């Protein structure tokens, strides 16, 4: 094996463990299995029924209120009032527990790969420059 190729492989192998803590790779999640046909059909029915019920209820409320309004003044708008669908509030994201003092706790994590990364980076640049100069 030629020296440049060997040095490149060596650098890649050496850099991988240190750099892994600093960079995030893209991991494609496995494909989700399709839900059974029966469940999809049931879900569709429920959604349709709920919408219809909401419209019916609001129409009745609107007719009642419109009757009162007609008695007071001339109708200006016959549009159906908007149906407000309340969605449940999103659950707050779980917060990471910050390190805090407790009896028998280990010392805070002060370990850092930065010096190693600095040295490795300098070595790679020096090696690369030497290769390009030849």
């Amino acid at each position, binding site marked *: 094996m030629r020296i440049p190729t060997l040095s490149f492989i060596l650098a890649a192998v050496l850099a991988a463990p240190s750099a892994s803590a600093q960079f995030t790779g893209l991991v494609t999640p496995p494909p989700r299995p399709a839900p059974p046909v029966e469940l999809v059909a049931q879900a569709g029915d429920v959604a349709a029924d709920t919408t219809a019920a909401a419209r019916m209820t609001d129409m009745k409320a609107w007719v009642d209120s419109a009757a009162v309004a007609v008695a007071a003044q001339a109708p200006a708008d016959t549009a159906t009032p908007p149906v407000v669908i309340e969605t449940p509030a999103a659950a707050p994201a779980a917060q990471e527990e910050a390190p805090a003092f*407790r009896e028998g706790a*280990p010392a805070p994590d*002060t370990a*850092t*790969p930065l010096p190693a990364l600095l040295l490795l980076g300098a070595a790679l*640049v020096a090696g*690369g420059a030497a290769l390009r100069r030849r």
Partner: protein
Amino acid sequence: MRRRVGALLCLAGGALLLHAGSTYARGALARSEARAAWERAEARRAVRDARLIDVGGDAEIVRLGAPVARLIIPSIGLDEIVVEGVGDDELNAGPGHLPGSAMPGGPGNAVISAHRDRHFAPLGDLQVGDTVYTETGAQRATWIVSKRRVVGAGKPALFSSDEPVLTLTTCWPIRYFGTAPDRLILEAKRMRHEG
């Protein structure tokens, strides 16, 4: 081919240098900001207002990253502003006070940690018997280092105390290529109250 491999190595090395260098630069900037904030807040009341947030009722929590104390160790030439918290951002800015531990000078164990390649780089030279000074908005305290030990990273190292104790921690060995496997723990006992 050789020139191409060389260029690739330069590029990878440059990226690593850029990442490490920018982290150090951001830390230096945050450190100077913490010192400036500390110096601005010399008045005791102003210091208290600057570092506390109201969480309702009588409870008060120190805001993460806020300067909470000054740590001076003449024997190793260390003079740092301690910030609240031991997360990545806080430890990049300065020595961090472990939330939940006592404030330096108060009753209990006050724990201060920092990186071995930055603010606590000279901590390895600190010996039993050396003097440490701390200042908070409330008081100044003088401490004498009484214990020095090295423990594994995951081993129990911090314990509560009825008496005022100051615990300084950093990674060990100080000079180590990679993620240091141990922790240097220095404990100091308070000598006298200075107001």
